């Protein structure tokens, strides 16, 4: 099937990235539910349930909206829920990318978006949910992060804090493990990490959500008794 590379501009990166995509007539873009910020009036929106129950379990909203340009081209502005970065990839049919379950933002219709069960041990202990989002096929893919995205070219493995993983390419395998000895596991503050083997690309984010929540906790009001 023929497909087009969409024209796009990413602005505000890496702190407040948002992306505007220009859709040619009758072309469709799949967008994570509630991420559409602005659009031309000739864009038609359809809500589709993708991936069914497993997508629901992955912690992503179960709905992906499809936007199609009618009667000419149209623009759509997409803003992720978290302040951070956006990365664009064009999948050529041979590549497979795995995303952490909240990193998916938008893709062309010929990109296949599936949820992949990581297994109980890997998923549960990583703290990032039980599922990864597997993206394959052909077309544009946009994903987002909290904080800036750093792209790592990995040849002989790398270790990443589970809270800092955005995504990685097929060809890399990982285990959830501890850093250092057992003392480090409980005392180091580093928790568990993903130990990647093999070669490929890993995208990491410079910030984690959990320290922000930890910081905000003392500022919670007290409910008077």
């Amino acid at each position, binding site marked *: 099937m023929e497909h087009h590379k969409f024209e796009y501009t990413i602005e505000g990166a890496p702190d407040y990235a948002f992306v505007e995509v220009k859709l040619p007539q009758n072309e469709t873009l799949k967008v994570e539910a509630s991420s559409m910020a602005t659009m031309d009036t000739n864009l038609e929106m359809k809500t589709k349930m993708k991936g069914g129950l497993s997508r629901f379990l992955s912690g992503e909203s179960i709905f992906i909206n499809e936007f199609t340009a009618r009667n000419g081209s149209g623009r759509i502005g997409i803003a992720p829920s978290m302040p951070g970065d956006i990365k664009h990839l064009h999948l050529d049919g041979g590549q497979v990318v795995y995303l952490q379950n909240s990193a998916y933002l938008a893709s062309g219709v010929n990109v296949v978006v599936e949820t992949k069960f990581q297994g109980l041990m890997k998923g549960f202990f990583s703290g990032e949910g039980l599922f990864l989002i597997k993206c394959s096929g052909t077309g544009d893919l946009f994903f987002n992060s909290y904080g800036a995205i750093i792209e790592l070219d990995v040849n002989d493995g790398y270790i990443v804090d589970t809270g800092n993983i955005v995504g990685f390419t097929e060809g890399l395998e990982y285990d959830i493990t501890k850093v250092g000895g057992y*003392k480090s596991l409980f005392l180091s*503050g580093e928790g568990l990490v993903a130990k990647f083997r093999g070669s490929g690309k890993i995208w990491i984010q410079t910030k984690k959500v959990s320290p922000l929540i930890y910081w905000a906790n003392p500022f919670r009001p007290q*409910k008077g008794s």
Partner: protein
Amino acid sequence: MNIEFEYRPGSTAVKITLDAQESITAEGGAMIAMSPNMDIQTTTQKNKGGGGGLLSGVKRMFAQESFFFNHFTAKDHSGTIYLGTSLPGDMINLELTGKKIFVQGGSYVASSADVHMETRWQGAKNLLSGESLFWIELSGHGNAIINAFGVIYPIDIDGEYIIDTGHIVAYEEGLNFTLSKAGSSWMSSILGGEGIVCLFKGKGRIWCQSHSSTTFGQQITPHLKAIKK
């Protein structure tokens, strides 16, 4: 050791490249990612095998830092490590050349092996100032990486200067501060919303942060879910 900052000031990470057998000490929890040839040792005290033990660990807990330090060493060949901040903000490297630097509790990220670190009780005046009860005193020669909420900017002081509480990240030896009022009277200082400020005296450099995390936290309090008593 090569230190490279990325995405300053809003989403800062630091990439540190270590030669074989070279070490860096980092605050617990600061590691984002690293090459697989890193050895990790976790201790309560900055200096490997040094004293201090539990008491200095407790002191550091009060200093709003993690209780423990991690010492990362590149084993057989050179290695890389990325460190991040816990709150959105800036990081800078301070090169220590013998002069002591006092870092606000919570702003310490990492330091090279030859930098000595001690926590210092700053007395009751810090309780009033809204700053941490403890400061981290860095001495020796080497690199120290500090972070902040917002952007870090230096001010060179020769004489006197007023810094609002909550905006001090670090200051050099040669400076000292006392608590003071921003306005001409206590009444105008408090009504003006400035409250208590720090009056610095002496000669040296001070590093400030553009925003106060405490002020921001107080702003969002009404929007946070209440804790049931």
